[in-house]
């Protein structure tokens, strides 16, 4: 028994997908992230928790260089995906984002049909050789996002006509249709009701079989439910990072403990 846990652990230790060293993010003159270093494991759900404004979403957006789209934002330090610097001049952010998918806080389906929403990524990346191929990819993505049964009869309906929870699952299907290696989720359930939240959480749990999932969440219960690893951020610092069970039951840092017990945040 103990042996098995040891080997499991060793496997996890080797499988580092994203490695960040001394990352700083500035918005104009203010520093939002201070010297954060972290290793994120593959095929694991890693949760970023912390009070509002602590920089966890900003840090998440570093991994697919979405901060590039904000004119005042500046990122320093190195972030490696599979050992390759994502800020290397020969690396195209467009290709990086094809490998690192993202789901946003607010469901943001395109004002197109459900089918076209999911087919959008595969189309622009040329993943489908034929129409039948594309149909296949769309169906698989919708099935994995647990939306197929509800949407198979109305794939031509507009994506915006779905309910909030369905829209978010559509966005997840859209993100996984491009076969990314990493899936970033920025508070994916914060705009949803408890039932839709439960569905999304179940989905995240299944996704970790194939993907490296990083999820930012406000809800500590959610972090405890879905993640294996948890990182606690406070005021732009990475305060503590470890196994979820350890963080929640036996935090080493005082600030983590205060947050988890509800004294700060």
């Amino acid at each position, binding site marked *: 028994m103990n042996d098995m846990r040891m080997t499991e652990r060793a496997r996890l230790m080797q499988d580092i997908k994203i490695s960040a060293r001394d990352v700083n993010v500035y918005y104009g003159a203010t520093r939002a992230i201070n010297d954060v270093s972290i290793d994120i494991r593959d095929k694991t759900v890693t949760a970023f928790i912390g009070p509002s404004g602590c920089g966890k979403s900003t840090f998440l957006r570093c991994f697919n260089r979405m901060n590039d789209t904000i004119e005042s934002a500046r990122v320093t330090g190195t972030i490696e995906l599979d050992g390759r610097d994502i800020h290397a001049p020969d690396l195209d952010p467009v290709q*990086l984002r094809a490998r690192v998918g993202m789901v946003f806080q607010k469901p943001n389906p*395109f004002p197109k049909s459900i089918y076209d929403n999911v087919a*959008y990524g595969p189309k622009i990346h040329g993943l489908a050789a034929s129409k039948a191929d594309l149909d296949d990819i769309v169906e698989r993505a919708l099935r994995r996002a647990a939306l197929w049964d509800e949407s198979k009869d109305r794939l031509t309906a507009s994506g915006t006509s779905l309910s909030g929870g369905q829209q978010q699952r559509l966005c997840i299907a859209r993100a996984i249709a491009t076969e990314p290696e990493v899936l970033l989720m920025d508070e994916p359930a914060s705009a949803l009701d408890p039932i839709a939240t439960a569905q999304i959480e179940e989905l995240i749990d299944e996704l970790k079989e194939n993907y490296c999932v990083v999820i930012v969440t406000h809800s500590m219960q959610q972090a405890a439910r879905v993640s294996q690893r948890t990182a606690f951020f406070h005021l732009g610092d990475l305060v503590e990072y470890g196994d979820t069970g350890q963080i929640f039951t036996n935090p080493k840092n005082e600030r983590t403990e205060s947050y988890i017990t509800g004294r700060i945040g």
Partner: protein
Amino acid sequence: MTLFAFVLLFTATVLAYLLNLRAARALRAGGARLHSLGGFHGGFAALVTLLPALVFLLAWLLLKEPAITVLLLRTLPEAEIAGLGTGERQLIISEIRTIAGGRIFGSPAEWKIEAADRLLAMRRTADYLMIALTALLAGGSMVIARRRVTPDFRARQGTEGILHGLMAFCATVAIFVTLGIVASLLFETIRFFQMVPVTDFLFGTNWEPQIPIREDQIAAEGAFGWIPVFLGTLVITVVALFIAVPVGLMSAVYLHEFASRRFRAAAKPVLEILAGVPTVVYGFFAILVVAPALRALGDMLAIPIAPNTALAAGGVMGIMLIPFISSFADDALGAVPRSLRDGALALGATPAETMTRVLFPAAIPGIVGGVLLAVSRAIGETMIVVMAAGLMAKMTLNPLDSVTTVTVQIVTLLIGDTAFDNPKTLAAFALGMMLFIVTLLINILALRIVRRYREIYD
């Protein structure tokens, strides 16, 4: 005297405000709990004092001279004005007025000088009466308002009610003026159709509005088919849109999504300057620069090009419309939520793919609305085409030919000596009516499209 009346009224208004304000404060100082704040008591008094007296004053000023004229006519010696027509009586009245004003030409009859004295006396009396009545009205209102100051009086509701009424009045002014314009247009159009059959106008393909003015004049019978004229408008509008739509949209897309911040900061004001150029200046440009250049080009290529081509007028109109379409498209792109852009970029779409597949389609309804508004502007545009387009109505779709437009025809029909009893002049109103209907329909369509697109994201 009039100025004095207004100063009096204004003083009374301020006084009423202060009086009621102080009264309300005194009540509160005396321990009463007032329903409304002191300022509302003051405002109520000021409005109650100002409005009735102001309405009275304006009405008085409006009716004073006509009333005096009527009274003056009655005092004139019966023998002098018996059997005279209205026009002649008015001549006498204006002569008396001139005398009263101190400008005496020649030696007027004695009775006219006496009448001028009477006129002056009447005016003086009227002025005193006006001031007295204004003072009475304002004073009376002030007293009434002052009596209303009690703790329970709902001065806030009163003040707000009066102000609501004022705002409603201002809102209806625009509506009634519009109705008046449409009604006058409609009235003249109906008169035109009594002389020229509706079918001749709507389906006729010949526009020759020259008709004989005198009985013995040799001229054409006159033909009023609006189709060739409208065709000219269409040709010029299409030419204008061919230039304005691609250039405007491309510039909006570039400025919104791809341009560096510095370039945008420089280009946007220049576009706004383009929007601020008076159309008459565009007209110069069309007739002095574009049209000769086109002709020179035509000579080089051995293509016959008319001096007043639809191409020159439409092309310059297109330049005029570029900033219009560009700013509309820019707004439409800006209204697309940022989350959609982020979503596309996060999927690994390039900025160009994000623009063509997500942002632009999402902005299409707004852009279409803007283009339709540009169409109605192009149809109604007058100055450029008056200067640069032709006068002959031709049934042609060739942009190298000279065409005329609805607006040009309206201008030429109404310029110079016009009599409002012949179809030539009245045709202008019929054309105006058609223009009004066409642009109204386009605007309604555009607003519908724009509104539907707002609903998606709000």
